[in-house]
Every structure is written in structure tokens, then in C-alpha cells.
């Protein structure tokens, strides 16, 4: 038994079934939302780019194998020995090196941007997942139980929101030794970044979920379930959670770009995943030293921009589709 989702059939609701005499078909709310989303061209473009980026990240070795050179391979012959500047126009862009080569060691920028997508998306997705899990659990508990539990969790949210997250993250990423918890190298750094980013962002989700839970808790279908003898776990998992899926989905989608920027910032500052593993933020940090060769900065910078923009566009569209009252 799924309770009605809080979608008011106001503006922008799906068009009526065309043609006279055709029986009106019942459509689920996700079908309605999908129909609405499909007509939002900007959001669909965002979704397209997101899918493309995920595919790029997943198939990075294949793509690089076909179109590039291994991301860690040095090509010193592509770089002028004295000035360290890439040979050829536009930083050595050619059919062999699609985005040119890095100054000094001549690594293939195309391959590094492609591999950078892996680190960026992996960390952003996992961190978002962590935030969503913590945020949903605590948000539902706070909203559903109320009283001192709610006060405690709400205060905790205030504290977290007041923290200088970036400085804390820098500190935390800096104090953890090179080997910990049986992990080392990239795996440790990725786990650490996921933890830091995810752990400091949960209040954004929790606040929204708490608010939604507070209002859902008072709705008739919850009373109905309770009067039928449903226990709290049933109400939470079968009545509340399905209704919370829409806000969770929306705000998770909107949290991903924030997390991508966060990861890029940490890598830029040198406390992210360590070199030589390619990251977009790390590439930009390297590019600062070679400002005379703008292409070095432009490709990783554009990669961050397009990824974040695509997620933002898709998230905005998703919000419009799932919650027509929001703008």
C-alpha cells in the first residue's frame, strides 16, 4: 500500500490522453514525473551529459586505449627540453594528443582528464550516498520522534552547518597518516575524501527530510495505517519512506555537483587524491605554475564546469518535475 505522493496536479501536469473515446489510463506518479521531465529539454540535456560522463568514467581505460596514451606515461619528446613548454601550436594539440600534453613531462592531457572523471565522480557519488544515508536516517528520526531527540539532532545540524568545512577538511585530510585502517595510497585517500565530504554535508539532506517527515507524520494516511494496527517500523518504511523518495532524489542530485566542486577544491589544495593519480583539481593546481600555457588549465577546468553544470541542470529539472510547486 503506497500512500499518495504530495504532488498537486496544478500547473504543468501531463497532457490529457489524446484522442476521443480512449479510456483514461491510470499513471503512476513516477510516470507523470518522467513525462514532465522528458519535456524539459534543458534537464534532459543535463541528463545526457551526466550519462555520457558516467560512461566515460566507467570505460576510461577503453577510451584512453583507443584515443590516448596511458595517463601516467611521460612523453618528454613532446616538450621543449629547455623551456619545458609543449612543442607545437596550442600546447601540442594533435590527432595523437587530443588535448595536448602537459608541460615538463609531456603527459597526455586527454587521458588525464578522462581518468580524472573516475576519481571525481566516484568520490562525489559515494560521498552523496553517505550524506543521504546519514541525513535520511537522522532526518526521519528527528521528524518522526520529535521531542528531545529532535532538539538534539537539530542542534547537531546547526553545529555542522556552522563549521568551517573546508578548513576542517584540509586539516583532516592533512593529519591522517599515509597508511590507515588497512588502506593505503589512492584507496585510502578516496575513502578519506568520501568520509570527509559525506560526513560534513549530511545536515543539508537531514534538514529537508526532517521538515518533510514532520508534515507527513500528521497526514491522514499515517493515521489510517496506525488505526489499522501498523507499528512504527511499518509506518516509517512503508508509509513515510516512499513519500520521501522524491525529496531524497532531488537533493541527492543537487548535492552531487557540490561534492564534485568540494573534491576538486581539496585536490586543488593538494589534500585530495595524491599525484600522480590524475584529478581535475590537481591538474588545475599544476596549471597554476604554467599560466603561460592556458590549455593546461582549460581542459580540466571545463571538465569540472560541464560536469557540475550538467548535474545542476538535471537536478533543477528533476525538482521541477517531481515537485511542481517549487521553482
Amino acid at each position, binding site marked *: 500500500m503506497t500512500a499518495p505522493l504530495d504532488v498537486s496536479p496544478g500547473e504543468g501536469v501531463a497532457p490529457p490522453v489524446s484522442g476521443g473515446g480512449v479510456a483514461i489510463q491510470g499513471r503512476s506518479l513516477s510516470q507523470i514525473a518522467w513525462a514532465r521531465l522528458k519535456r524539459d529539454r534543458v534537464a534532459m540535456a543535463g541528463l545526457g551529459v551526466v550519462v555520457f560522463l558516467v560512461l566515460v568514467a566507467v570505460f576510461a581505460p577503453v577510451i584512453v586505449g583507443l584515443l590516448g596514451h596511458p595517463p601516467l606515461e611521460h612523453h618528454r619528446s613532446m616538450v621543449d627540453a629547455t623551456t619545458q613548454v609543449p612543442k607545437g601550436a596550442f600546447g601540442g594539440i594533435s590527432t595523437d594528443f587530443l588535448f595536448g600534453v602537459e608541460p615538463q613531462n609531456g603527459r597526455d592531457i586527454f587521458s588525464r582528464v578522462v581518468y580524472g572523471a573516475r576519481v571525481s565522480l566516484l568520490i562525489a557519488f559515494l560521498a552523496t550516498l553517505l550524506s543521504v544515508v546519514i541525513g535520511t536516517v537522522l532526518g526521519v528520526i528527528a521528524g518522526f520522534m520529535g521531542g528531545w531527540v529532535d532538539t538534539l539532532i537539530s542542534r547537531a545540524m546547526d553545529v555542522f552547518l*556552522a563549521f568551517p568545512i573546508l578548513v576542517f577538511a584540509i586539516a583532516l585530510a592533512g593529519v591522517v597518516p599515509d597508511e590507515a585502517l588497512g588502506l593505503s595510497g589512492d584507496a585510502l585517500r578516496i575513502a578519506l575524501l568520501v568520509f570527509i565530504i559525506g560526513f560534513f554535508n549530511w545536515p543539508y539532506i537531514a534538514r529537508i527530510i526532517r521538515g518533510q517527515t514532520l508534515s507527513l507524520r500528521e497526514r491522514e494516511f499515517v493515521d489510517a495505517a496506525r488505526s489499522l494496527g501498523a507499528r512504527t517500523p511499518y509506518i516509517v518504511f512503508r508509509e513515510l519512506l516512499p513519500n520521501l523518495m522524491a525529496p531524497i532524489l532531488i537533493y541527492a542530485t543537487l548535492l552531487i555537483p557540490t561534492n564534485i566542486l568540494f573534491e576538486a577544491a581539496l585536490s586543488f589544495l593538494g589534500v585530495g587524491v595524491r599525484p600522480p593519480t590524475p584529478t581535475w583539481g590537481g591538474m588545475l593546481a599544476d596549471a597554476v605554475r604554467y599560466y603561460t600555457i592556458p590549455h593546461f588549465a582549460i581542459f580540466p577546468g571545463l571538465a569540472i564546469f560541464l560536469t557540475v553544470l550538467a548535474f545542476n541542470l538535471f537536478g533543477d529539472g528533476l525538482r521541477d518535475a517531481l515537485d511542481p510547486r517549487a521553482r
Partner: protein
Amino acid sequence: MVTYIIRRLIAAILMLLIVSMVTFAIFFLVPRLAGATPEGMASRYVGRTANAETAKLAAERLGFNDPVVVQYGNYIKGIVFGAEYDYGPGVEKCPAPCLGYSFITRQPVLNDLIDRFPVTLSLAVGAAVIWVLAGVSIGVLSALRRGSLFDRAAMTVALAGVSLPIFFTGLISLVVLSYGNPFSIFAQGGHYTPITENPIEWAYNLILPWITLAFLFAAGYARLTRAGMLDTMNEDYIRTARAKGLPERTVVAKHGLRGALTPIVTIFGLDFGLLIGGAVLTESTYSLQGLGKYAVDAITNNDLPKVMGVTLLTAVFVIAANLIVDLLYAVVDPRVRLS
């Protein structure tokens, strides 16, 4: 009103205490849980050159072998009463409030923080003026002309603005407008003149960082203001204001804007507090020697007490900014005092 202020003050002090605990946990507890030995930690405080023997001695003298509670007690005691560190070569004094003592530069961190603060403050204040003026006015105009060409153009730029990392826009701005190319009308990064010395040069050197930083925030504020304004203008009291014949200008400025701006003020308090504690990314991009750059450089040099100092100071700023915003609310909006 008085009870409200007292309540907020107590909350702020509690918050400070929690922040100090979290800061402590990050610097003393996390490394330990992650498997660092007291000697290993001590060597990160006294410098990499220390050999095993001195590291062991330093660990003992700096109290890394003590139970965590004792360490936290000493840490708080240092903040309140000052601290003395005897790590081997001699006794080092760190007067209260001791936010940390760098064994590498042999300086209480607070001295450095006071030196660096004007840079960060100049950056934050200038940028804040630009982003609030630009962000809020663009947001309001967009909301009032919803769906117009201006609205769509502004929101497209704003969306791009929130999607661009500041270390990318900053870098591009430097490449295009500085660094000795034909359009190099602005100073290279790393220049800062105190306002007391030469206000014009001060502003000139900061224009590029100001605009870059303000662009990011203005984009966010424009989006927020627009959304808030659209919400507020649908409220019943706006209809009432119109119904009683007020000119549209008064309705928008006095009734609409006030409702829309309250959440913006909260966020501004948070953002500004964070920023004066160190605009980490902007300062790093433009090589401005502010608090944020200080923290980043300290991490690179493994000089943890400095990072700890910045972390604490930033938290103090954020909490203070929140407190001020809360108190301002109580003055502006009587409803707040009741809740």
C-alpha cells in the same frame, strides 16, 4: 528580549565548546585512531628533522602519551590561561589565548593570525559588498520580471556561476587580465598593500580577487533571492498590501523584499563568517597571504598547530557572525523573540 539574548549567548558558548572538541578530535584523536604513534605525532609538531630519540622525548613532554581527556584539558587550559611547552631544547611560552604554538617557526600561532587577518578581511569585505549588491538586485529584478529575457539571461549566467570552481575562474582571470599579456591591466597575484598605506593601490590589487570571489557568491545569492522573492510575492500579505492601494514600489521594497531577505541574511552571516576565517581557495589562487593561504601552506609544511589555530579562529568567526545575525533578527523581526 533579554532572555532571548542570554539564550543565544549560551548557545554560542556551547557551540564554541563543541567546536573546540571537534578541532581537538581532528588533530589529536583522528591521527591516533588512524594508527599514528605518539612519537610519530610529536615529530610532526617539532619538525621532520627530529630523530627517533628527540621525537620520543618530545612526545613525552608535549603530553602525547597522556590520556585523551587530559590532553583535551591541557588544550583548553592553553586557550584560556596560556601554555608553556617544554619539548626538549627549551621552554617555549605561548600566552593566552594560546590557539597553538608552531614549533617550526617558534611563534605562537596567534601572532601570525593577527598579521594575516587584514588581508583576509579586506578580501572578504570588498567581495561581500559586490556580491550582496549584485546578487540581491539581480535576484529581485529576475523575480519581478519572471520569464523575461533578462530573467533567463541572468539565471543562465548565475547557474554557470555556481558551477564554476573559483580556482578555475581565478586562474583564467589571471591568465587573461594579468601576467604580462596585452590585456594585463591588473596586478599579478600576491600583491597586497595595506589600506592605511595606500587605499587606491589596496583596492587596485584586490579588484580581481574581489570580482572573482563575488561572482561565485553573487550567482548563488541571485538564485536564492529570486526564489525567495517569488515565494514572498505570492504571500497573502502582499495581496493585502496591494489591496490597500500601496504603490507597487512600496509593496516590493517594504513588504516583499523584507520577507525575501531574511533567509539571505542568515546565509550571509554564515558565508561571511566563514570567509573572514580564510578565503582558502581565492587566497591560494591569487597568492594572497591571508588566513586561508596560511592554513594551506601550514599543511604543506606539516605545521599542524597553525592549521589548528586557523580552524579554531574560523569557527569563532562563524559562531560570532551567527550570533550577530540572530540578535539582528530579534531587533528587526519581533516574531523571532517568541520562538
